[in-house]
């Protein structure tokens, strides 16, 4: 990488660092409570929320991994687009209810809601642990995203592991420091820079690159030719199951796979603690609904970005690694095709793009730990400032864990776990979303359904082999009793719901104590200006009043 690209990259990174620390002074407030540190004062309007939630849901890893799957010839890779279409109507319908009940009762995490709704610390703990387990590898993958960029950019010499990963350490230390000091305000402010950079890079890429490569029509046909060539060259290996056939459009056998990946991922997305954190930081219900109509702009961007995978194929991009690592395709495309200074902007966009979600995810995981483990089990009388302090430290530990993960364990292990994370997090859907509408489900039935879904999903994912991996070979498995491939999370979810319904009938018939529900039906449509709903909740008020 040229000196120009390095300078541009470092300059943009420095701007973001200054912003991250300055964020502590933005919308100035006492940061010694979770409402302020962990939810940015619950006061973000439409504009800020658009950047924050957009920056939160469309992570650097997404920007690396989605085009990588298309580059590698996975015909279901484009499911990311229907997935992000389906998710917004669901957000429009479900999340305002979660916002309302959380606002009225001062809930900070999804597990807080579960605890209040079902009166069960155990069920809340299950939801909290699932959230932390699913989020941790996701943070690790943000660091993998940064690593991919640094690797292609040729940062960090060829010395020992310390020198090689020094830039990652620096990026990580900076991230940890400003998240600690500024809380959710830091990613909210940085998200502006990140998204402007990403939009500029993608728009330039989808206009400039095709003009260099003979237009979109040529890119699609060149990709098609390349995949057809691969399939005929490797016909024997494909027939023997040692290689996967490549394609651009899913064949009829993969229709269910494509649709179930889209739906399962959409349902899982807003169960992730970091999405809930983003949503709860908004000022009122209208902000969430307005954003459900505005956020699809990011889906458009994601779709264009995904197609860069084909652009890389058409441009003849070769990636390093053995076996070749398709995740390097987009950074390598930038390196090959852009002038150095703009390649620097592109690298910065991806690296900064990793910092925003990594910060929000670590805050969300830390809040879960503080509220649903530390306070629930160890310090029921923790003061707001103690909670904030514990969360700050927990957010550091979560990030250190993610760093160790990436450096000490293999990258594919992090990817496997993130795959499992999607399967796991979807199992909290009955407790949270169904709980927003009805208390009919019995708390122990929800817990049993969750356990069944977790076990089935983990076991099935473990058993999936691919040409390169014996276990965790992919997100698809045969639907029980058929040959049709579907998303594992969707089947696990079906089992979860089935177990929950059957056991609810049994437990209700046996008149087992269903637990106390501290919420009222009216709480689910409460908005600011209503009685008992402050524009900004007083963090010192007793929460479970």
């Amino acid at each position, binding site marked *: 990488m040229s000196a120009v690209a390095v300078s541009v990259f470092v300059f943009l990174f420095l701007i973001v660092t200054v912003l991250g620390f300055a964020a502590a002074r933005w919308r100035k407030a006492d940061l010694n409570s979770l409402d302020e540190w962990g939810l940015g004062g619950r006061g973000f309007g439409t504009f800020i929320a658009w950047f924050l939630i957009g920056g939160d849901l469309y992570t650097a890893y997404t920007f690396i991994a989605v085009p990588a799957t298309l580059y590698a010839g996975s015909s279901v890779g*484009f499911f990311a687009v229907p997935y992000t279409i389906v998710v917004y109507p669901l957000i429009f319908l479900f999340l305002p209810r979660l916002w309302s009940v959380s606002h009225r009762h001062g809930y900070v995490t999804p597990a807080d809601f579960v605890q209040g709704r079902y009166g069960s610390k155990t069920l809340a703990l299950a939801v909290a642990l699932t959230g932390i387990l699913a989020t941790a590898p996701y943070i690790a993958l943000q660091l993998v995203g940064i690593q991919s960029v640094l690797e292609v950019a040729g940062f960090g010499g060829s010395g020992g592991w310390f020198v090689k990963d020094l830039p990652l350490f620096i990026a990580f230390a900076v991230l940890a420091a400003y998240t600690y000091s500024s809380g959710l305000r830091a990613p909210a402010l940085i998200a502006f820079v990140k998204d402007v950079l990403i939009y500029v890079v993608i728009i330039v890429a989808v206009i400039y690159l095709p003009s260099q490569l003979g237009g979109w029509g040529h890119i699609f046909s060149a990709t098609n030719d390349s995949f057809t060539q691969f399939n005929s060259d490797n016909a024997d290996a494909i027939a023997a199951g040692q290689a996967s056939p490549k394609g651009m*459009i899913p064949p009829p056998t993969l229709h269910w796979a*494509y649709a179930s990946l889209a739906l399962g991922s959409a349902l899982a997305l807003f169960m992730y603690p970091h999405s809930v954190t983003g949503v709860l930081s908004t000022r009122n219900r209208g902000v969430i609904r307005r954003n459900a109509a505005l956020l*699809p702009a990011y889906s458009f961007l994601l779709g264009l970005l995904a197609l860069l995978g084909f652009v890389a194929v058409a441009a003849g991009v070769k990636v390093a690694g053995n076996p070749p690592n398709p995740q390097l395709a987009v950074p390598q495309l930038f390196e090959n095709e852009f002038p150095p200074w703009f390649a620097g902007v592109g690298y910065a966009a991806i690296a900064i793009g990793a910092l925003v979600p990594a910060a929000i995810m670590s805050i969300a995981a830390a809040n879960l730990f503080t509220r649903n483990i530390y306070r629930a089990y160890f310090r029921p009388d923790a003061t707001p400032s103690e909670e904030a302090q514990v969360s700050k430290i927990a957010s550091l530990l979560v990030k250190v864990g993610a760093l160790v993960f990436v450096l000490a364990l293999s990258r594919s292990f992090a990817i496997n776990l993130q795959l499992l994370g999607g399967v796991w997090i979807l199992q909290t859907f009955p407790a949270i979303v169904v709980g927003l509408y009805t208390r009919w489900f019995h708390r122990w039935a929800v817990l049993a359904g969750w356990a069944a879904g977790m076990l089935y999903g983990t076991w099935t994912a473990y058993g999936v082999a691919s040409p390169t991996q014996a276990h965790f070979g992919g997100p698809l498995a045969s639907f029980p009793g058929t040959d049709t491939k579907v998303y594992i999370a969707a089947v696990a979810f079906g089992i979860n719901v089935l177990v929950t319904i059957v056991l609810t009938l049994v437990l209700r018939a046996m008149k087992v104590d269903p637990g106390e529900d501290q919420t009222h039906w009216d709480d689910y449509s409460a*908005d600011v200006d209503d009685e008992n709903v402050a524009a900004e909740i007083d963090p010192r008020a007793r929460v479970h009043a």
Partner: protein
Amino acid sequence: MSHDSPAPTRRPSTGLWALIIVILLPAVVLPLWVPLYDKTDPTLFGFPFFFWFQFALILVSAALTATAYGLSQLGGRRGEGSVR
């Protein structure tokens, strides 16, 4: 539903919400109906149908969600979607 509702204005206007759900339904169903768009032709600006149709769906679903938002505002403080 509970009997001790504090004010009649809080009762959800069911008809409006049924309409909103009907409006949002295509945004969920169409993207999942893969056989509908699983083809190369007709192409648009060099994009196979499979790809440009899904881009078009993004615009359609954004428009539908915006309409739903407008309707939820109409319901004003009376509906489930009281947004103020």
